[in-house]
C-alpha cells in the first residue's frame, strides 16, 4: 500500500512540476511588465491563447518540427506583445518620467485598457475559431507515454520541463549579461537614472513586452499540445494562476514568481490526492490569501531587486 501511494504521489509531483513550470513561464511576463511599469497586464492570458492558436494553425498548415513551431510561436507572441503595448499601454503613457510612468492614473487606465484588449481579443478568437475545443492532429500531441518503473510520464512532461528550463535560463542570461536585459533592469530600478545614461525607455518597454509575451505564447502552445485542448478561453485559468504566483512571489521578483509558480503547480497536482479535482482551483486562491495575510509583501518581495 505505501509503495503504491508513493508512486502515485511521485507521479503527481511530476505532473505538478510541469504545470508549475507553465505557470512560471506565464508569470514571468506579468512580472517583467509589472517590474517596468508597475501595472498588471490583464491581456497576458490572451497572449497565451494567441500562442496556442498560432501553433495550431502552423501545425495544421505546414506540420513543421516542434522546435520550429515553438520558435515561430514565440515570434508571434513577441509581435502580439508589441502590438498590445502600442494599443493598450503607449497611448496612455504621455510622458516618460518616473512619476507618470509609475503613477496611479497610468496604472488604473492601463489596467482597464489591457482588460479591454483582452476581452476583444478573446471574443475575436471565439468568433473566428468557434468557442469549442479544437482538434489537434494526433501526430503533434505531446502525449507519448514513457514508463519509468511505476511512473508514467509523457514526452510532454519532458518537453515542457526542458523547454521551460532553457527559456528560464535564457531569460536570466539575457537580464544579466546583455544590454537589452541590463536596460530592462535599469528602467525597472530607476527610470530617471536610465534616461540619464542614455537608455531609450520606450524601446526598452517594447522589448519587455516582446520578451514576456514570447514566453507566455510558448507556454500556450506547449500546454495545448500536452493537454490536447486549444480553445479561445484557455488563457484565463493559467493567467489567474500566474497572477497569483506573481503576487505570492512579491510582485516584481522573477525568482520569487518561478518558485511560487512551482509551489502552486505541485500543490494543485498533489491536492487531487485529498480533494476532488473540481476543488483544485481553491488551492491557488487559498495560498494567495494565506500569503497576503502572513507575508503582505509576498514570499520574496522584501528588499529584492525588481525584475
Amino acid at each position: 500500500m505505501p509503495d503504491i501511494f508513493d508512486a502515485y504521489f511521485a507521479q503527481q509531483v511530476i505532473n505538478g512540476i510541469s504545470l508549475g513550470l507553465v505557470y512560471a513561464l506565464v508569470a514571468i511576463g506579468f512580472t517583467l511588465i509589472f517590474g517596468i511599469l508597475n501595472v498588471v497586464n490583464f491581456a497576458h492570458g490572451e497572449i497565451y491563447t494567441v500562442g496556442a492558436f498560432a501553433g495550431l494553425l502552423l501545425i495544421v498548415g505546414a506540420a513543421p518540427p516542434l522546435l520550429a513551431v515553438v520558435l515561430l510561436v514565440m515570434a508571434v507572441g513577441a509581435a502580439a506583445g508589441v502590438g498590445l503595448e502600442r494599443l493598450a499601454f503607449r497611448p496612455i503613457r504621455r510622458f516618460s518620467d518616473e512619476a507618470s510612468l509609475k503613477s496611479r492614473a497610468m496604472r488604473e487606465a492601463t489596467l482597464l485598457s489591457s482588460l479591454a484588449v483582452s476581452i476583444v481579443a478573446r471574443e475575436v478568437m471565439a468568433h473566428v475559431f468557434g468557442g469549442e475545443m479544437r482538434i489537434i492532429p494526433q501526430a503533434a500531441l505531446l502525449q507519448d507515454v514513457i514508463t519509468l518503473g511505476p511512473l508514467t510520464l509523457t514526452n510532454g512532461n519532458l518537453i515542457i520541463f526542458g523547454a521551460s528550463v532553457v527559456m528560464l535560463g535564457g531569460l536570466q542570461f539575457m537580464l544579466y549579461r546583455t544590454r537589452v536585459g541590463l536596460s530592462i533592469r535599469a528602467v525597472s530600478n530607476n527610470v530617471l537614472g536610465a534616461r540619464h545614461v542614455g537608455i531609450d525607455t520606450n524601446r526598452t518597454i517594447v522589448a519587455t513586452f516582446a520578451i514576456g509575451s514570447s514566453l507566455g505564447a510558448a507556454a500556450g502552445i506547449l500546454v495545448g499540445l500536452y493537454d490536447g485542448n486549444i480553445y479561445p478561453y484557455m488563457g484565463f485559468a493559467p493567467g489567474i494562476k500566474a497572477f497569483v504566483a506573481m503576487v505570492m512571489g512579491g510582485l516584481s521578483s522573477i525568482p520569487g514568481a518561478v518558485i511560487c509558480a512551482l509551489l502552486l503547480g505541485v500543490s494543485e497536482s498533489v491536492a487531487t490526492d485529498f480533494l476532488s479535482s473540481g476543488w483544485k482551483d481553491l488551492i491557488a486562491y487559498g495560498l494567495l490569501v494565506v500569503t497576503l495575510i502572513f507575508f503582505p509583501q509576498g514570499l520574496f518581495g522584501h528588499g529584492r531587486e525588481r525584475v
Partner: protein
Amino acid sequence: MALLELTDVHVTMGVQEILRGISIAVPERAIVAVLGGNGVGKTTLMRAISGIYGITAGSIRFDGQEIGNTPSHGIVRHGLAQAPEGRQIFGTMTVRENLILGGITVPQGEISGLLEKSLELFPVLKERLNQKAGSLSGGEQQMLCIGRALMAKPKLLLLDEPSLGLAPKVVKQIFDLVKRIRDEGATILIVEQNAKAALKVADTAYVVEGGKVAVEGKAADLAKDQRVIDAYLGGAAHAKG
C-alpha cells in the same frame, strides 16, 4: 565658439514658466558653475540640456548642433552625460552593472577600457564592484554617479549638486576629482548651492535667480562680488563676525 551655448532658453512645466530666457556659454575645457538657491530652476536647466524636459523657446547648441528637444538617449550619444541631482543610481544593481550601464551608448568593445579608467579615478569603487550600489555611502554613491556618467565618454560632463548631503571632507575630494576630470580633457558644467566650493574650481560662473541669469562673470571676480557674497557666501554672517 563655446562647446555648449544656451540662448534665451525657456522651459514651462504645466502652467509655470521655470526658465525665463536663460543664456549660458560653456567654453571647451572649462569648468562653468551655475549657482543659485532652491527653486530657481537649476535642476530644470540641467534636465532641459539633457533632454529630460523639452524647451518651449530658445536654443541649445552643442558642438555646433542644435540639441534642444532632442530625447535624452540622443543627447548622451552626442557626447553629453550628466551626474543628475539625487544621483539616480541603480540601487539594487551592482556597482559594476551601474558603470556598464553608464556606457550603454558606447560600442561594447570599449567598455572594459572605460571601466578601468573610471576605477582608476575612483579607486574606492574597485573594492565594491560586486556590491549593490544602494549599499554604498553617500560619497561613494556620488562617485559612482560621476563614474557612471564618465563611462559614456562625454565631451561635456554635467554635474547637478554633487556636494548635496556630503561631509565637507568628501565635498573637497569630489571637487578635486572634478578638476582632475577637466585636466584630462573634459568640459564641465556644474550646478551647485555650495557656492564657495564651486567658485573655487570654476573658471566662470552664473548666478541664477527666478529662472534668469542675475550675475555672470569670472569665478574669481564673483567670489569677491558683494551681491554674491551677501546672497550665497554667508556675507551677512561674515560682516557681523
